[in-house]
């Protein structure tokens, strides 16, 4: 649920991204964008907005350009932010009523000294629901709020979300961090404690999103998008624009979360001044809500990678050491099956090569569900087991290894490699002989070789050859996609490397059953003294600690 929310918010913010462009550049730019054949969803959305925007953007919003601080518009548009899903989901028809309602509602505000400005206003729109409960009674109070920021008209595709929000008296989120307010337990009704906790979360989220890099990247993308000849290469432009939209979405979400925090602080201070007990308690409650929400947002930020929301394949391969290590590989596979079940993912066995006596030589499962890859990627590497082997009659201690690879299953088709039927060699695993009516076998394994790359995929676990072929094709597709992605993006791909690339040296975790009992992650130092629970799929502690460690380690990165 949390995940779908994240996705929605990103999508809706790509829409909002279009608006500054359309409003200020009614002519050539918006024109071009509606013509691009890139087929990306944000462009198809931009068309109807385009038609609506001139009527009000031009006349109403221009006067307020000099004074862009529009956050006090929140209450006005909080209803809008709730209805943003239809906009992003179904595009043109549903977006119209929203925008026209928007228009008439906002007209009175023109009179206000710091009347609205479409940028903050839209970022409110794009905030993922966080603004819906903000500012209970601020309508008549907020006119005094001023922003120190002057917005320049020259940025058509801008990074305006970079603008650091602050309270009326200039307090920023970093400022809160610096004041070192004590963070008390969540149950304590202390607004400074709540505010500090939320600020800390925002700090962490920024770090996870690699905020500074994000800003630089966004600036670069904006610059590129503002070049007049960008649309000469529509495919490239579409790509740039999509990335810009996604990054902007992330950024705006954080910004609006920050803004919301600061607004509540403003409200509390105001309530103090005016002795408004009701307002104070409402704002305190709102801060408490934010604090609760922030944990979820921290988690979302952890899985912000492009492929994180995908389903995935998990592959396990036994290391050297015969039956003992094949048994270990089977245990590891079982651990992932149970983990996936606990997370309510759908698990399908795609391929399984059993060991002669016990366990598996290798196996592939498909894990279906949101963020399966985002989590499972933390498991890539070599897993080591130390125990008294049940297969050793002398009861000696053995060390075995199993390698784990995780492959994302790209859903949207954007990176799908086109597979040519003629490039495939399809092999059946079937005993020789006459075949056909002569043979009755339930063995219907299929192996597909992609001749140009040598990539292969096998499936033997379905009960019909047709199904085995379909499954093997899906695996092959994902492997080729992965290869292509790595090639294109030159991604350093520990997470996406294939089993064969994993060197047996890249140990990530150690499971000791004898002489003591412990599971320890060698990357994070995270350890658990109950191996059974881990082998029964209780992996989230390891996964989370790895994800946060890998994201949070670089202090300079935020």
């Amino acid at each position: 649920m949390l995940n779908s929310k994240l996705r929605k918010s990103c999508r809706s913010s790509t829409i909002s991204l279009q608006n500054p462009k359309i409003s200020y550049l009614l002519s050539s730019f918006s024109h071009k964008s509606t013509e691009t054949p890139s087929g990306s969803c944000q462009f198809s959305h931009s068309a109807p907005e385009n038609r609506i925007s001139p009527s009000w953007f031009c006349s109403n919003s221009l006067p307020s350009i000099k004074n862009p601080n529009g956050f006090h518009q929140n209450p006005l548009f909080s209803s809008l932010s709730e209805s943003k899903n239809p906009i992003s989901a179904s595009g043109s028809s549903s977006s119209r009523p929203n925008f026209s309602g928007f228009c008439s509602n906002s007209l009175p505000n023109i009179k206000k000294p710091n009347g609205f400005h479409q940028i903050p206003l839209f970022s409110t729109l794009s905030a993922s629901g966080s603004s819906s409960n903000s500012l209970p009674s601020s309508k008549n109070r907020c006119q005094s709020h001023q922003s120190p920021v002057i917005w320049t008209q020259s940025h058509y595709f801008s990074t305006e979300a970079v603008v650091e929000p602050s309270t009326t008296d200039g307090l920023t989120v970093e400022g809160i961090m610096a004041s070192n307010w004590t963070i008390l337990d969540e149950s304590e009704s202390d607004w400074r404690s709540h505010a500090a906790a939320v600020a800390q979360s925002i700090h962490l989220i920024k770090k996870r999103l690699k905020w500074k890099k994000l800003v630089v990247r966004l600036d670069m993308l904006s610059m590129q998008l503002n070049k007049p000849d960008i649309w000469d290469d529509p495919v490239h432009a579409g790509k740039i624009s999509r990335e810009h939209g996604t990054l902007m979405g992330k950024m705006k979400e954080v910004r609006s979360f920050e803004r919301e925090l600061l607004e509540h602080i403003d409200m509390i201070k105001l309530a103090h001044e005016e002795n408004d007990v009701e307002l104070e308690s409402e704002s305190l409650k709102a801060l408490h809500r934010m604090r609760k929400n922030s944990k979820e947002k921290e988690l979302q930020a952890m899985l912000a990678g492009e492929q994180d929301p995908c389903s995935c394949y998990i592959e396990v391969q036994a290391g050297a050491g015969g039956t003992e290590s094949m048994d270990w590989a089977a245990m590891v596979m079982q651990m992932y099956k149970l983990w996936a079940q606990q997370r309510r993912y759908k698990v399908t066995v795609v391929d399984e090569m059993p060991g002669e006596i016990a366990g598996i030589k290798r196996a592939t499962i498909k894990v279906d569900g949101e963020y399966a890859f985002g989590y499972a990627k933390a498991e890539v590497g070599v897993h080591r087991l130390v125990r008294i082997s049940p297969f050793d009659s002398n009861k000696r201690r053995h060390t075995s290894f199993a390698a784990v690879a995780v492959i994302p299953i790209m859903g949207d088709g954007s990176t799908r490699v086109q597979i040519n039927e003629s490039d495939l060699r399809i092999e059946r695993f079937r005993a020789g002989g006459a075949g056909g009516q002569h043979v009755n076998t339930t063995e219907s394994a299929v192996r597909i070789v992609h001749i140009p790359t040598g990539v292969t995929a096998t499936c033997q676990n379905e009960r019909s050859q047709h199904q085995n072929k379909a499954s093997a094709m899906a695996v092959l597709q994902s492997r080729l996609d992965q290869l292509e992605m790595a090639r294109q993006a030159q991604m350093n791909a520990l997470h996406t490397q294939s089993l064969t690339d994993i060197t047996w040296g890249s140990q990530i975790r150690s499971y000791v059953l004898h002489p003591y009992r412990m599971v320890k992650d060698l990357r994070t130092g995270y350890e658990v003294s109950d191996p059974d629970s881990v082998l029964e799929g209780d992996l989230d502690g390891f996964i989370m600690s790895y994800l946060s460690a890998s994201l949070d380690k670089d202090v300079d990165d935020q």
Partner: protein
Amino acid sequence: MSTPPTSLKPQLPLFLRPPLHSASVSDLRKWHDWAKNLASSVGTTFLDSDNGPDSDLLCRELKWLMEDAIEDHAVFSQMGIENNQTNVRLRMGIEELYNLWKQRIEERRPFQYLVGCEHWRDLVLSVQDGVLIPRPETELIVDLVADVVSNNEGLRGGLWADLGTGSGALAIGIGRILGSCGRVIATDLSPVALSVAAFNVQKYGLQDVIELRQGSWFKPLKNVEGKLAGIVSNPPYIPSDNIPRLQAEVGRHEPRLALDGGLNGMDDLLHLCNGAALMLRPGGFFIFETNGEKQCKSLAKYIENDIRGSFHSLDIVSDFAGIQRFLTGLHQ
């Protein structure tokens, strides 16, 4: 439309039966361990003697048998627990499970007859004793027909015939790829086969597309002479003297009627070629499964020489194993 001209009641596949039986996890585990031991004891003896299943394959079948017999698959993760007295609902009594697995190993009764179904393409077809178990090779016929009709609306919306339909596999596979006007008549000599085919047709909701008729080859098709858009068939093609040396699962259990193609295995194939020349409309398509290269070539030769002028665009298509398995052609 598809009511078979018989009152035989087909067996319900195991996985569709109501879970009226029960056993404790511990008893189930006992059975499983026994069955697994039995399977392991086979080693490669079946494989070595007649290309039958080895232990690995039998173990996989055992897993599938459990999947079909047990209502709640969550039990699988509890199987490891010793002395688990939790009750599990089963679609078949545990004594019967012992019986069946014994039949599987000792009598080499085909796995598909044990569970009453075969997974074929994306279908799960009911099968039982007396009905040929559809083979994976035959799956390709549906793909080839799909190719042919994909660029020929006339064939896509036409009348097709599946001769010797058995479980109805080909008729159903093709019925699902034809256009809204497309129809299939499926024939078989065996009343048991027809009753099973009727069950399968019903299962896939194709009663309005597929008509079942009892009789030998073209006999039930007199009224559509010269009107068929396509004919498909997987007729018996094993030479009679090969029958005694067949893999035990096939030779001892599957219906000879569906396997024995006469002296050189060509009796029915030749009959089908002659009939097709008469039954197909101009431009109509046929595809027949054969025993391999030898039969494909001699059938092609027969068409080119003995019934010259009836067909064109003959093509021999190989199965996945590279054996020249199918002959296709178009009516003049």
